[in-house]
């Protein structure tokens, strides 16, 4: 570390300030009415982690149910078919709407984005707090719906099933509607912040790549989420009054619902993955101690992914009854997604090449991301290709594919980012040894659980199945065991992170020798982020020794 400090000009391991954003004020009100983006970020973090826990419990239940075709655990039927349908719906809805979508932007993004920009706060602090409360309201509504029997529609709410089934579907869709607006306001806030609150000297191409990723995400949040809002309103009205747009019984078109839904929900996939990529773009240069390779290529690929994500939604509907022409067009456009994703991966590898790579926990997660995302991305080709998609769609192949992208990539990046910024957020270092154990278990468990499911899918096991043919039993059992290993890994991770909070603050201001602005303030940061307005003097990720730069 000594040597590293000498090679970089801007490590401010100044004496720790007595007051920071955590202890400046105390009491419930000082948190409930805070306008500080860091506190709001922390509240979001607690919220999304709780949702992750809840969604994870449902996931384990789903896997446990599928352990054997008779669903019997110690002679008892664990879940009936109806309960199973509710549980996988809850797993999907909670993970998507309450966890992954807000996970990185609203929690880590909220905390880090203004710091990285050298700003005192986001553009609209009150709106920021408001979107947190919207999230909380949505979460509580979803929980209420759960208490009242939960819905069994799948997280996609496909009509006419969702307009005819029992259960508090209206309440659940209203919850998602509210969550959508929380997401919109967060995105809106970030766009305005990035446009207007950059530190002096920070041009667009001096932005850290994390910001580019979050900015692209925010663009999608603002442009796509309103359509989800109106879709859900139409669904609620269809269910309550029968307006005749989605339900064929009263003259509607169920495929139109799918268009509406995927116009949001495909871009939403990029709301989930882009922030993950954004974190990886921070981790790899920092832990390689080397400037990012192809800065502009990565920045442009984030934006182009955001834009392309709007014109490929039909690939969810190849066999769903949309026209042949639309299907072919959507397939062709879908392949466009592969290009910027590939560009990013190659650029990350280019960054690692000739680096000085320190295998700390965040970097291990970043490397896991590269491998898992490669699998997730490459299996996407099978699904984007028309002929093979016919066989693979709606099977476990799809389940495995999107878990590799959503969980293997986004959640891996999220955990990596959490470890990366943990010292900054809490002022504490966690146990590096246990960090590596957690990462190992995560990787082993994840691949056991989901690599198996590719085989299940290609063999013809449809998704959302409660009962299955006996021939699939060994693979299902293997997958279930994998899910427990994931659970164990996450449990260990949670344990050592929480344990670190009991220690006195010990984290240096810049434990990883990062170059972005958030490392220039103290750990944890003071309430207004910086003692004095930071000025960007060098481009980000510049690891040249100072002498060489001058």
């Amino acid at each position, binding site marked *: 570390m000594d040597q590293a400090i000498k090679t970089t000009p801007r490590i401010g391991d100044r004496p720790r300030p007595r007051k920071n954003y955590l202890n400046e004020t105390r009491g419930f009100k000082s948190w409930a009415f805070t306008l500080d983006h860091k506190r709001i970020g922390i509240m979001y973090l607690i919220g999304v982690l709780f949702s992750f826990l809840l969604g994870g419990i449902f996931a384990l239940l789903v896997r446990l149910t599928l352990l054997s075709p008779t669903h019997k655990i110690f002679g008892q039927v664990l879940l009936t078919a109806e309960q199973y349908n509710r549980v996988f719906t809850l797993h999907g809805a909670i993970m998507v709407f309450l966890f992954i979508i807000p996970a990185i932007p609203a929690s880590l993004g909220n905390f880090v984005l203004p710091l990285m920009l050298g700003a005192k706060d986001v553009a609209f602090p009150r709106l920021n707090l408001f979107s947190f409360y919207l999230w909380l309201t949505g979460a509580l509504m979803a929980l209420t719906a759960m208490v009242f029997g939960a819905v069994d529609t799948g997280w996609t709410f496909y009509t006419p099933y969702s307009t005819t089934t029992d259960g508090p579907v209206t309440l659940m869709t209203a919850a998602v509607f509210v969550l959508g607006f929380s997401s919109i306001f967060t995105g809106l806030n970030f766009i305005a912040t990035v446009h207007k609150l950059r530190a*002096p000297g920070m041009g667009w191409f001096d932005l850290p790549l994390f910001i580019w990723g979050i900015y692209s995400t925010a663009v999608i949040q603002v442009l796509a989420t309103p359509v989800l809002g109106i879709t859900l309103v139409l669904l609620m009205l269809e269910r309550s009054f029968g307006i005749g747009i989605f339900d064929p019984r009263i003259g509607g078109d169920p495929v139109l619902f799918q268009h509406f839904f995927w116009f949001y929900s495909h871009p939403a996939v990029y709301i989930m993955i882009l922030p993950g990529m954004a974190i990886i773009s921070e981790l790899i240069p920092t832990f390689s101690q080397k400037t990012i390779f192809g800065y502009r290529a990565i920045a442009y690929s984030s934006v182009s992914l955001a834009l392309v994500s709007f014109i490929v939604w039909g690939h969810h509907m190849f066999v769903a009854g949309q026209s042949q022409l639309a299907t072919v067009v959507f397939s062709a456009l879908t392949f466009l997604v592969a290009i910027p994703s590939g560009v990013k991966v190659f650029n990350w590898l280019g960054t690692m090449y000739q680096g000085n790579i320190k295998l700390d926990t965040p970097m291990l997660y970043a490397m896991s991301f590269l491998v898992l995302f490669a699998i997730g991305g490459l299996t996407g080709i099978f699904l984007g290709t028309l002929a093979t998609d016919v066989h693979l769609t709606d099977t476990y192949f799809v389940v495995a594919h999107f878990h590799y992208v959503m969980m293997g990539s986004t959640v891996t990046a999220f955990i990596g980012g959490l470890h990366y910024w943990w010292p900054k957020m809490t002022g504490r270092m966690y146990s590096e040894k246990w960090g590596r154990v957690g990462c190992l278990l995560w990787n082993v468990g994840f691949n056991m659980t989901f690599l198996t499911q590719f085989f299940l899918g290609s063999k013809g096991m449809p998704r959302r199945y409660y009962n299955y043919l006996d021939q699939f039993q060994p693979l299902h059992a293997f997958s279930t065991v994998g899910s427990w290993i994931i659970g164990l890994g996450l449990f260990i991770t949670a344990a050592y992170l929480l344990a670190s909070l009991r220690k006195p603050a010990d984290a240096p201001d810049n434990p990883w020798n990062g170059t972005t602005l958030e490392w220039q303030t103290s750990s944890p940061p003071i309430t207004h982020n910086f003692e004095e307005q930071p000025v960007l003097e060098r481009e980000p990720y510049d690891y040249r020794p100072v002498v060489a730069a001058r």
Partner: protein
Amino acid sequence: MSTTSVDLHAHGHEAEHAHDPHHQHHFTTMEQQFDTSKIGMWLFLVTEVLLFGGLFVGFGMMQARYPREFVEAHTHLVRWQGALNTVVLLISSYTMVLAVNAAKKGIKSKQVLFLALTIVCACIFLVVKYFEYSHKFEEGWLPAKYYSYKGDSLPACMEKSAGPEAAAAAPTTPPAPCTNGYATFFSFYFMMTGLHGIHILVGIIILTWVLIRANRGEFSSSYYTPVDLVGLYWHLVDMIWIYLFPLYYLIQ
């Protein structure tokens, strides 16, 4: 890449403008604050456009599905009422922009006058809407399953199926009276004009709030952000009506 001198310059401004009571701490200058608010407002308007846009898409698709029913249902709307409301809203947009202009120049009396006129126009709009709606209610041109008008000319479903293959089958099928297309039209009519009406109502509320603040003399050439933003909102509401009017009242 930049030099430090610019930054120092900016710092100087921060100190200089720290006095303005509306200046929030995380902005360096008032102009930065104003621009940021404006970007935020425009982004919000974009979400509004896409929110309404979803309904427009749904309307378009359903119109493609039930072309004849939709055209017939269109004739039940009263064209002059729509036209009158268009004119009223255009005028309200005009008074709104004059109010913003007055705020920018810091002329209090004009601000109050034009904001009040805008609110009056908005109220006229709602009154006309009230008469329109009550007529629809009387005739049974209601949305969705409440549609109870009996005078439609075609049994919708039958007509739709009269393709070459279905022609042979048609005589044996009892002509089921089916209001699908008509009810859907009025569902959309009420959803879209209703959502627009809600926006007008919200507009009246925030216009009143701005009017009160203007009357207190809070706005000056250095701070008139609320008037400007409410103006943007109001023009968007007008803009949406500009599309709703021909789509609903003129296609017959």
